[in-house]
């Protein structure tokens, strides 16, 4: 008939239960936390305050963090590093990248030559899942997922980033304390 086996308690256990040792132990712990929070000293045992005050204290994001995308530019010439190879778009599982290339004619050593350059780069951050496969696919270290993590906007259209936004960075309001 029995479904749960429960062993017979020893006298010590009985006494502990009789004097509600289990309850008082728990209450003692929460009291220690309460006192610890007020003094905020014993952080090793974890009795201090743990939370961060986010908008006023900004968290340190890890260097490898995958956040808002960015198109890097050559630091000297300020030209886009993107060679419009479309590898990122191919690597993207969500198909959220559109690389629109255009051919420009230029002369290299006097000879006219066509070169494929980037015209427009569309990155739909609302569909992006920040897996960083595009970043790994990029041969020129142009596309990068940065540590920027505040991506909220007021409209769905605002999630679709064009080349300008990707290169300059989106204007975002920083909250003050």
């Amino acid at each position, binding site marked *: *008939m*029995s*479904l*749960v*086996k*429960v062993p017979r308690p020893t006298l010590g256990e009985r006494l502990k239960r009789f004097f509600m040792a289990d309850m008082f132990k728990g209450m003692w712990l929460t009291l220690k936390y309460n006192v610890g929070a007020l003094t905020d000293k014993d952080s090793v045992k974890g009795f201090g305050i743990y939370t961060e005050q986010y908008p006023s204290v900004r968290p340190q994001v890890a260097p490898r963090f995958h956040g808002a995308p960015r198109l890097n530019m050559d630091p000297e010439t300020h030209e886009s590093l993107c060679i419009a190879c479309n590898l990122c778009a191919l690597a993207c599982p969500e198909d959220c990248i559109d690389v629109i290339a255009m051919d420009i004619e230029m002369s290299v050593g006097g000879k006219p030559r066509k070169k494929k350059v980037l015209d427009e780069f569309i990155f739909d951050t609302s569909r992006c899942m920040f897996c960083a496969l595009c970043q790994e696919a990029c041969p020129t270290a142009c596309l990068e997922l940065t540590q920027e993590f505040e991506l909220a906007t007021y409209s769905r259209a605002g999630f679709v980033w064009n080349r300008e936004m990707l290169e300059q960075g989106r204007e975002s309001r920083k909250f003050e304390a």
Partner: protein
Amino acid sequence: MVLSGWESVFFWVFALSALVAGLLTVMARNAVHSALFLISTLVSVAALFVLLGAEFIAGVQILVYVGGVMVLFLFVIMLVNVSAEERGSEELFNRTGQVTAAVCFVALLVFGLFYAVNQSAGSFASNRSEGAGAARLRTAETGVSKISEDTQRVGASLYRYGALPFEIASLLLLVAIVGSVLLARTSKQELVADDVDPRVIPELSAAGELTPAEIEAAARAKAFEV
């Protein structure tokens, strides 16, 4: 008793609200509304008790009737299907018999009231000058106030003169409670109960009242000791 000043204001407010709420109790379509009006009647009557200086009775009235009985009433009303009665479109007082009975009853009541007032008028008048009047004008007790006299009197008479009826009543109530629990409890609930005799279970299953699955479910809910 003569009403004066604010006392009379309070009296009329509560008396009228008791009457109106009482009327609404029988006139309301929704049973829950009707129960609520009954509660307001009871509260108004309790307030009248306070005006009479019987604070203990007032407190008990609210505690027992409003807090206990009416809560159970509401409990039951909420579980019973009241929608059928609500929907009825008959008008009130549309039956000759009902009206006749009501008029007869009111007449009886009025007659009884007048009779009682006539009977007690003399003694009431004589009392007022001494005991009752003094009690009414009793000022606030600031020091260690005693249990007010009516409280003591109620207790004393309950346990001294009314001990036998009191005990009989409590026995009756106890029997009623045990009986109703016994009647209401199904064999399934019996099985889950803590205090069930283990021998009952095979009997029940032999009588075909319980399936093995039910016994198992009950045992599951119960978590026996080894």
